[in-house]
């Protein structure tokens, strides 16, 4: 191997031989992350991550999914705690599969909709029901949907780690971290001045 150029690595011992295959166990559970970036916008699914506990997932979610711009809060839930419907065919509504409305009381459920392939799920609202399927049947009438829903996710409200109002302060300085933004790296003046010296 040539000389290592990174001083950080010069201080460590690298491993030149292949490692034994990873045990299957070495796979952490996955979580889904929803972010509210502005007051007027709904909670939106931003992506997934690997973590041990719900609390650790929350810690990770903050920096992976809300380290730029404004953020009013995040919700995190274990993937296996989300009930996922099929994908409806074009022009049909997934709610056509959930017509039996039992009593709409019991546990609180958060419902998320995807309206178009390729887009992210957004929060449609909360309903009370005994099961996730029942929650969808209740949501069918209770929640607004501007157009047919292609796919829906339902999770018990109590299974989410939701940021608290006091925790909002954690995002207070995020919009000021301009060193992460393209806008902070303007070159026009420098190039103009350089060109002037060249001609």
């Amino acid at each position: 191997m040539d000389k290592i150029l990174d001083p950080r690595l010069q201080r460590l011992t690298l491993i030149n031989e292949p490692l034994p295959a990873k045990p299957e166990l070495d796979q952490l559970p996955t979580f889904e992350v929803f972010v509210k970036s502005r007051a007027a916008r709904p909670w939106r699914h931003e992506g997934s991550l690997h973590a041990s506990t719900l609390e650790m997932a929350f810690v990770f979610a903050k920096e992976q999914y809300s380290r730029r711009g404004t953020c009013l809060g995040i919700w995190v839930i274990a993937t296996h705690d989300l009930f996922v419907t099929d994908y409806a065919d074009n022009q049909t509504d997934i709610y056509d599969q959930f017509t039996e409305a039992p009593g709409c009381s019991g546990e609180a459920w958060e419902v998320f909709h995807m309206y178009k392939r390729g887009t992210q799920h957004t929060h449609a609202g909360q309903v009370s029901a005994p099961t996730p399927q029942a929650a969808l049947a209740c949501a069918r009438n209770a929640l607004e949907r501007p157009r047919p829903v292609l796919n829906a996710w339902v999770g018990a409200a109590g299974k989410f780690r939701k940021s608290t109002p006091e925790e909002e302060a954690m995002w207070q300085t995020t919009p000021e971290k301009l060193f992460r933004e393209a806008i902070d790296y303007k070159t026009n003046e420098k190039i103009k001045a350089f060109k002037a010296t060249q001609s």
Partner: protein
Amino acid sequence: MNTTALKELLYKMADDQLIMGHRSSEWIGLGPLLEEDIAFASKAQDKVGQSLALYQLLEELGEADPDTVAFSRPAAKFHNSIFTELPNEEFDFSIMRHFLFDTAEYYRFELLSDSTYEPLQQVARKFTGEIRYHILHANEWIKELGDSTEEAIARMQSALDKALPYALGVFEPSPYEQKLIDSGLFAGEQALQNIWQDKISEIIGQTALRLPAWESIEPVYGGRAGHHSEHLQPLLDEMGQVINSEPGAEW
């Protein structure tokens, strides 16, 4: 206002943040899992960003500009605690140091939110939110690793034992301690240490780790007065290598 006392306070805080941020940055791209790599990298950026804000306060008080102050002083002119300059070692020591340091930092900024020096008060208020995340992050790691596999508990215990004397060094009294307190600039190291000990005991109490009696720990002082370990100068040389290679140049 006692400017000398104030400057001493600002220098030690700024130097602490800079050196901690720099050490944390050594983990970027090499973390134990991708998600933590990202979280750790943000903490590194926040600490460096906070040091910059503090150096800017010093500049307003007549000191040189932040790049000069941060990248061209020799070790003897640095006032960071020795704790922050120690090498990262493995994740156990790195995260334990973060836990002990971040807790002190959070409550220091909280106390300074009432400082009579208004520019410092504003900086402190501004950053307590983001440091809140730092302790949320550190506490969660300590709770998980400190109460997990035997291997993890043993590693975390030895990291704690090694870190504590240095962590107490963070509260090394300043020669201007009484002046700072009297003028309402800062509540003082002793007041901070008392709060800190309670919080540390509270979190460690939720794990399988053992905390020795506080009075049995001999603090490692010296950093605040510019007496450092052998680790600081090489680190400063590395930080300044490019910027000092061409004096007067803009990078």
